[in-house]
């Protein structure tokens, strides 16, 4: 955190991120909220870059800005037009509580961690060139169990999603799916 440029970048990015994040729940238009959400994700990626975490930054863009936001897009587009409104305040109380709790955890952690060991010279040494190697070795070395557990969790989430959208009682859905399978590009069983 020596260079002036990095400091300026940090403040600008933080401002963008926080303002966009605040606007998300102030805006009534859900579509605008999604666009701002993407801005938040991109700002976060920029913040990661100022911390020399290039892999995390790129992964942030790839996963959050590129994929998660598309998920939100689908969710919004499947919402009936009448209820496409950000004005619902039913969950405002619990949301605030939860948000406050998370903020508290973050603040406590921020003050609890010895940040100094990773700044200055140590940060300089951890240059851009070997982040991926280090991350890869860590993931498939000491933390391989957690890595595998996470992947199994994701697999189950995938299966759960499929089970949720497949209605065994709905013959129409099954027939439609069969029909869709029949009309495939190179498929088309006789």
């Amino acid at each position, binding site marked *: 955190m020596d260079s002036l*440029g990095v400091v300026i970048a940090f403040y600008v990015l933080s401002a963008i991120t926080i303002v966009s994040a605040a606007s998300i729940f102030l805006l009534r*238009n859900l*579509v*605008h909220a999604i*666009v701002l959400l*993407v801005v938040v994700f991109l700002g976060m990626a920029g913040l990661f870059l100022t911390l020399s975490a*290039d*892999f995390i930054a*790129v*992964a942030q*863009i*790839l996963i959050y*800005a*590129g*994929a998660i*936001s*598309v998920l939100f*897009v*689908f969710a919004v*587009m499947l919402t009936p037009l009448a209820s496409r409104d950000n004005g619902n305040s039913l969950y405002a109380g619990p949301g605030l509580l939860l948000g406050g709790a998370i903020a508290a955890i973050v603040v406590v952690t921020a003050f609890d961690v010895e940040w100094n060991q990773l700044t200055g010279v140590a940060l300089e040494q951890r240059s*851009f*060139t*070997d*982040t*991926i190697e280090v991350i890869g070795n860590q993931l498939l070395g000491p933390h391989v169990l957690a890595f595998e557990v996470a992947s199994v969790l994701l697999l189950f989430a995938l299966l759960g999603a499929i089970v949720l959208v497949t209605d065994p009682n709905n013959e129409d859905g099954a027939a439609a799916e069969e029909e*869709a*399978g029949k*009309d*495939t*590009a*190179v*498929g*088309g*069983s*006789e």
Partner: protein
Amino acid sequence: MTDRHSELPATPMARQIIARRSLLDAAKAAPVSLKVAGSIVLLGLLLVNALIGFIVVDGQLDGEWYDFRDLGYAMERLRIELDEVNLGPWLSYWVTGLIGGLGILSFIGGFLLIGSWIERRLLARFQVRMGPNRVGPFGLLQPIADALKLMQKEVLIPMGADRLLFFLPPVLVFVPAMLAWGPIPWAPGMSYLDINVGLLFVVSITSLSVLAIWMAGWSSNNHYALLGAMRTVAMMVSYEIPISLSLIVVVLITGSLNLGEIVAWQTDHNVWLAVLLPFSLFTFFFSSTAEINRTPNDIAEAESEIVAGFHTEYSGMKAGLFLAVELGNALFVGALVATFFLGGYGLFGLEQWIPPYVILAAKASFGYFVFIWLRSTLPRFRIDQLMTFAWKYLIPLSIANVLVVAVETSIAARWEVEAIFIYGSFAVVNVILTVIAVRTWARVAGYSSSFERPEPPRVAPMIGGLKAARRIKAGA
């Protein structure tokens, strides 16, 4: 046109067609002095080239700042010089960054100008017509005329459109398209953004354009645009998976996410990854056609169904920006294919003679040519066929491909034989495996041979109605 027709152009149109002259005719008809002057100029150029070639082979150029084969050296030198000025590191940073950015932008901008002309001329050639040939020599100024026309046009904002979101997308779609060019290595030392996560950077930046397209479609307040946008979003999200999986294979083999190192690996081993990984090449190329909305996967702007898809409502230069991005993306995918699978800037030692960036540009243009070729040849898939193809065919096969290549990589790491034998056997095995896997999986997933060879129509032996139809059907 046969002889009789050319003797006897019966109609004004036929006469007009015959009267058109080609480039060769123009050269033949030139006066003798012009021919002599031209030959002298050509000879001089040849001589100069021979001289340059001599210097190159002599090794005098290697690594010097005036080494025109790799402009990266000049930049390096410039940076060192600027650092000595003692104004702080920002000077060298900004100056070299600006020069590099301008270089890339001017290359793309130049290509956008010439590219639309190339595309239209080539398409016309494929379609037995002339193409633009009126503005300037051989119609070369047509793109400029088009751009001027687009700029003069009124930019309409449809009623009920979300004005901000309608304004932003042409810009937002342009930014990732330009940014993604950053990590492409043009020569060993000539890469604008030589980062370690180059491959991930490319994938993530290109995935950003989904949102811009969706914004364009949603904010237009038009059902065609919305339909096109949702088709695009669904398609891009689906096809990002096969793209990533096919690139993971590249990373597995080369052991690096850095595009420069991927190219260097291919140059070192004297092999193109296209030979080693034919399936990945196909997956990447096909999925890219979906990502950038080119035929046969241009369902997002299928003009026979939804007019122009997400940019139906855009007019003037805003529509022009979308079209330009589409064109630039085609070239970019060509460059990516060249980098990942066709040896990038390398050409088996020839890069010592020809500037590597020229080689890369030529390879990228070849990719672009293939896109034009496809566009002029193939019909379009339907959306459900396309999604089925991604999820049922490409993704399972890509995963299997990753597995196979992972095994091969670990063999290569442990087996101590000449690299040429290892990779030669891998190439053979992979080609065979690809063919077998594709055929088997197609059978498993329900491909039937009736789609391969549908029967031609019958000849009716009699005239009649329903009874005759039934009799013919039963008899056959």
